[in-house]
């Protein structure tokens, strides 16, 4: 089922959580709402679910206006950030809840409910845990119970609020891949909220980057990473170096890479080429530190013309060895890819 939200506004007192947000999610899509805390991503998810009422705007499910449809009738599956499992019920009872509260006419028989729930528990790899209480499960297991519970009512839309937020790094990795596989199997339209860019880029088909109640960019993971539409997206998705065209504190300085004073240049650390000889379009810099743990070496550099301007370049270990650099060396840098934004837009303080 496709979802369309149009011109949604939502305020909490004087806080503007969503400003004129419009978004279309195609049937079967797996969409990440990505943004820092306070960006409105969770509010948008809850508006789609019907847990929050927008001040203005329209929510449509499959072309039908759903804005005023009660959360009970929307038939969405919702996975809460802290799972919100019913703590006094066993795992099986949790999963069965959505079926058991149905009116008698549409409620499956007890045996059917049990059968279906056990099957779901197998799907989320929790067979044998049916009689445990939520408090007896690990975080990752609880997460999967919450997912099974949401899927039990056969929702047409699956909404997940920071699904892996409360888990440790390894379990996260595992569950991410697992969620991706599950989605590929079930083809259920899914939206999840996250503040972790890596998670969004790895799992989703489409990434919606949000900031201060607005959508900054919508695109595939490659699009938002390779062609960020705004300085915010550039900053938020991965590491970035900023080169200012304007010199600090009136000290005369050659602007790096031919930037005009109104410009700020954005370069990803791995898009920064480090060479020993000066060449066309290079800037002189001094190597201050190196971090050589892992396959990628991180070089901390300082612009020769301005000791305040510290930036990072990443390169493969082999390449670093070939250059045979040591701390204190003079090097030359050149961006392979430079994106220029107006200084005002870029908010140079960042």
């Amino acid at each position, binding site marked *: 089922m496709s979802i369309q939200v149009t011109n949604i506004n939502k305020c909490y007192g004087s806080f503007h959580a969503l400003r004129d947000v419009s978004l279309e999610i195609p049937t079967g899509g797996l969409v990440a709402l990505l943004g820092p805390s306070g960006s409105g991503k969770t509010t948008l998810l809850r508006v789609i*679910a*019907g*847990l929050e009422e927008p001040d203005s705007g329209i929510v449509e499910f499959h072309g039908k206006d759903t804005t005023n449809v009660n*959360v*009970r*009738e929307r038939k*969405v*599956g*919702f996975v*809460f950030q*802290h799972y*919100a*499992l*019913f*703590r*006094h019920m066993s795992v099986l009872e949790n999963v069965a*809840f*959505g079926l058991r*509260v*149905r009116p008698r006419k549409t409620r499956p028989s007890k045996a059917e409910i049990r059968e279906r729930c056990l099957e779901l528990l197998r799907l989320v790899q929790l067979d044998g845990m049916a009689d445990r209480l939520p*408090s007896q499960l690990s975080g990752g297991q609880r997460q999967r119970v919450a997912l099974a*519970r*949401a899927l*039990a*009512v056969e929702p047409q839309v699956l909404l997940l609020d920071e699904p892996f937020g409360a888990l440790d790094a390894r379990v996260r990795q595992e569950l991410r891949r697992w969620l991706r596989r599950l989605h590929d199997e079930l083809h259920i339209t899914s939206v999840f909220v996250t503040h972790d860019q890596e998670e969004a880029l790895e799992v989703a088909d489409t990434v919606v980057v949000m900031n201060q109640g607005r959508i900054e960019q919508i695109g595939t993971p490659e699009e938002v990473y390779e062609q960020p539409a705004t300085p915010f997206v550039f900053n938020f998705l991965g590491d970035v170096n900023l080169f200012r065209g304007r010199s600090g504190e009136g000290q005369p300085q050659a602007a790096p890479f031919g930037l005009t004073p109104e410009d700020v240049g954005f370069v990803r650390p791995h898009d920064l080429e480090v060479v020993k000889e000066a060449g066309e379009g290079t800037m002189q810099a001094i190597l201050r530190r190196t971090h050589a743990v892992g396959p990628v070496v991180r070089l901390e550099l300082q612009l020769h013309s301005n000791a305040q301007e510290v930036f990072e370049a990443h390169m493969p270990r082999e390449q670093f060895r070939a250059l045979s650099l040591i701390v204190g060396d003079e090097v030359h840098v050149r961006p392979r890819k430079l994106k220029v934004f107006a200084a005002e837009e870029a908010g140079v303080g960042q």
Partner: protein
Amino acid sequence: MAGTTRSRTTAGGHGKRKPRESPLVQWSLILLSLVFLGFFIVLPLAAVFTQALEKGLPDYLASLKEPNSIAAIKLTLITAAIAVPINLVFGVVASWAIAKFDFRGKNLLITLIDLPFAVSPVIAGLLFVLLFGQNGWFGPWLQANDTKIIFATPGIVLVTVFVTFPFVARELIPLMEAQGKDEEQAAMVLGASGLKAFFRVTLPNVRWGLLYGVILCNARAMGEFGAVSVVSGHIRGLTNTMPLHVEVLYNEYNTVGAFAVASLLTLLALVTLVAKSIVEWRAQQALA
């Protein structure tokens, strides 16, 4: 004692270590608490039972079987049997509203729930006399309809309800607030109506707290003296509850009788304490 209390927390690095006092301080604190408890609690408790059994078990039982005592026990039980369920329902409804919904005047409601704790029970009794007494607001109307509230059972039940209504609500509000709204919202997303969410999710989650509140409410309902005393009129065998009956017997120098009835109230207190501990223990188990 001043010389023995050396604080170790001042030495920055040990800031996280529990401050440990010398054994002398520990033991004197423990001893002080024990002496205090012994003098103010254990001694009086023992006194109640010795006095009650002073003239032997037959006399003890006889004074409990005396018609006025039986009437007092009955009245107390009736009062509790009406007041506790009323406050159970009221407490659950009020705390549900307060903890799970946002509305205007919420703080006022919380303050009003606390009112009976703040008001002296005697004043509470007087309030009801002012409302329903012969010269009270509803007095003439009640008289015209031949209904008696003050100096009768309805009055006693009314003041008891008033005095005991914070117990259940006070117990449940913090518990429900701590549990948040997530589980209810999860239930609603899964298609449960508000009532189903309440009976299947909210209520089971607070069952131990609820029971705890009911136990405390019941203890107070049976033990209330001041407010009941004002509206009862002390008619023997008719409007005396157990605490009032104890006073009457005591004033008549019927020590054995007074302490026999008092021992029942004391037993109630002990049973309450045990029940309370069990419930607290179960609640902790449920949380773990």
